[in-house]
């Protein structure tokens, strides 16, 4: 019996190689001019989306909670970062979104955001607390399945409506933009952009590693047990609501950190990021990449967004939603394990075919074991 008592392997060497490529090799190639700044900027965004996708999969693939509100936590993290960046613009007076509603001074809640550590703390606390309160109420009332999904979507929609209002003093529908510096570095500098990319890649590696560890612990076993048979878990003495709450808060914080890194890279944050379609799109990345795996959602997020960048310009632009929807339907129908499950699926198909062939050639041979793939 090995030390690791639970199923699944960590594939450590492969992951380390990928981590080195993402964190070291790509930025190095960029500084040498082999990878363009534009491409690097795109990859920075893709990786943020990859982290967001993992946070969805932690809930959906591992715990059976389809959350349609992860874009809310992503955006909240972005807003926390945005508030800090707005305070860092400097200059006289207040930004337009404040003067527009007759304010000549910063509202008091903006002031502490001058401190980066405070902003960082808020990126964890604000989405974490929101997830805690919402999750506490939802899980205590045993809201599950589609009702949970609808509620998370409603919460996101409500938040978007709130953020669209200028009276909230959070920039209204224009949001925050025209950022200048982060930690004293100009956001227009290539090197700053490169460091932002490196920070994103590092966060992704940390999140992947952390989630691998989490899902291989006994907690991971309980998580998946809740997904498959919550009643049994309850009748095995586990307070399932607490476990769901814990993972809901963790995943909200992960999404928030991804959003916080996203904003300085794209240079803007506004309530349209909370749009219902954003959360749904992220769920599609997870389904395409492979639900119930850690790497799958990242692959899904990167490939869909790379494809989107390519397809949404020119003649194919109008067809992009159709292409995405079509891909989703195909994957749901034919690839239950998504892209990462495809090799195993093909292998299974090949063995089945060759087995049938050999069985047909020598009917007296052993009976083929049942191929029961769900």
């Amino acid at each position, binding site marked *: 019996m090995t030390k690791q008592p639970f199923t699944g392997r960590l594939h450590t060497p492969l992951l380390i190689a990928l981590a080195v490529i993402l964190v070291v090799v790509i930025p190095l190639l960029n500084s040498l001019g082999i990878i363009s700044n534009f491409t690097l900027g795109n990859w920075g965004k893709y990786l943020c989306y990859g982290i967001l996708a993992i946070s969805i999969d932690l809930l959906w693939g591992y715990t059976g909670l389809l959350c349609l509100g992860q874009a809310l936590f992503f955006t909240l993290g972005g807003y926390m970062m945005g508030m800090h960046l707005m305070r860092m613009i400097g200059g006289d007076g207040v930004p337009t979104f404040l003067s527009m509603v007759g304010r000549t001074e910063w509202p008091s809640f903006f002031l502490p955001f001058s401190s980066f550590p405070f902003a960082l703390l808020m990126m964890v606390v604000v989405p974490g607390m929101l997830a805690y309160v919402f999750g506490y109420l939802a899980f205590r009332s045993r809201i599950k399945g589609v009702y949970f999904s609808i509620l998370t979507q409603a919460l996101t929609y409500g938040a978007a409506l709130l953020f669209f209002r200028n009276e909230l003093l959070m920039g209204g529908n224009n949001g925050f933009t025209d950022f200048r510096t982060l930690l004293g570095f100009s956001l227009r500098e290539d090197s700053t952009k490169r460091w932002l990319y490196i920070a994103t890649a590092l966060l992704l590696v940390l999140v992947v590693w952390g989630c691998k560890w989490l899902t291989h612990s006994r*907690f991971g076993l309980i998580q*998946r047990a809740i997904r498959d048979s919550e009643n049994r878990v309850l009748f*095995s003495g586990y307070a399932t609501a607490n476990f769901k709450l814990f993972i809901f808060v963790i995943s909200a914080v992960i999404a928030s950190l991804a959003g916080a890194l996203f904003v300085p890279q794209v240079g803007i944050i506004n309530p349209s990021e909370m749009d219902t379609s954003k959360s749904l799109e992220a769920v599609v990345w997870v389904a395409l990449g492979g639900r119930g795996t850690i790497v799958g959602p990242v692959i899904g997020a990167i490939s869909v967004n790379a494809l989107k960048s390519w397809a949404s310009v020119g003649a194919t632009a109008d067809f992009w939603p159709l292409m995405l929807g079509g891909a989703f339907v195909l994957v749901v129908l034919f690839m239950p394990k998504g892209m990462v499950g495809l090799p195993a699926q093909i292998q299974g198909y090949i063995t089945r075919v060759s087995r049938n062939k050999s069985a047909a050639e020598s009917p007296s041979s052993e009976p083929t074991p049942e191929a029961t793939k769900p």
Partner: protein
Amino acid sequence: MIVESSHLAKPFLLAAEGLNKSFDGFKAINDLNFYLDEGELRTVIGPNGAGKTTFLDLITGRTQPDQGTLVWDDAKHDLLKLNEYEIYRLGIGRKFQTPTVYNDHTVTENLILSLAGSRGIWHSLFGKVTPAQRERIAEILATIKLTNQAYRKAGELAHGQKQWLEIGMLLAQEARLLLVDEPAAGMTDEETYRTGELLLSLAGKHTIVVIEHDMTFVRQISQGRKVTVLHQGHVLCEGPVDQVQADERVIEVYLGRKSKVA
């Protein structure tokens, strides 16, 4: 070996009094009184709709009664005030009618999740399976005859094996009271017999309540112990299986309509 329960002498492990539960006007449990001593192996029989499973739902906190009391361990705990996992933590384990195991987990993992011990999040993150627990798991695997299937996914097991695994999960929990709902359902005669042997070997170490339809099986495990007959949510009569089977009312409502009677 067979201890006749003397209700007045010692406190009850589980006592239900005046329980009532109706679903949309249908009285599933009707003024039910039920007393269980520590160490008993009690069989509960009754026709379909007699309220057997509902009774287990009430004990384990799945449903709340409309009226009545349900107390545990010499009335130290009021089960009606506790939820499912709190009741479990008192040492009440349940095997469901249809085998309910974690299909995507291996047999060993199923048992690990059921092991007695902390149920907290912190423990689930950092707690390790101790050598003593590994030994216990090996022991249970031998008891439920699944040693060779230890690393197979539970979903791949045969129906009877799943039933045993679920009983094994109750053993891992070190439950004081095992509530076993139709353990022989869907089993072959041989599997049924082995399940009976398994339950008999556990009698005495645990208090067991078995709900069953199969009278051959009931005869095998009751062996002169008390059998409770439920009818329309009410205890019709109690006593050794021979006495129960001879009872006019029982023949009328239950045995008379069943061809299974031995």
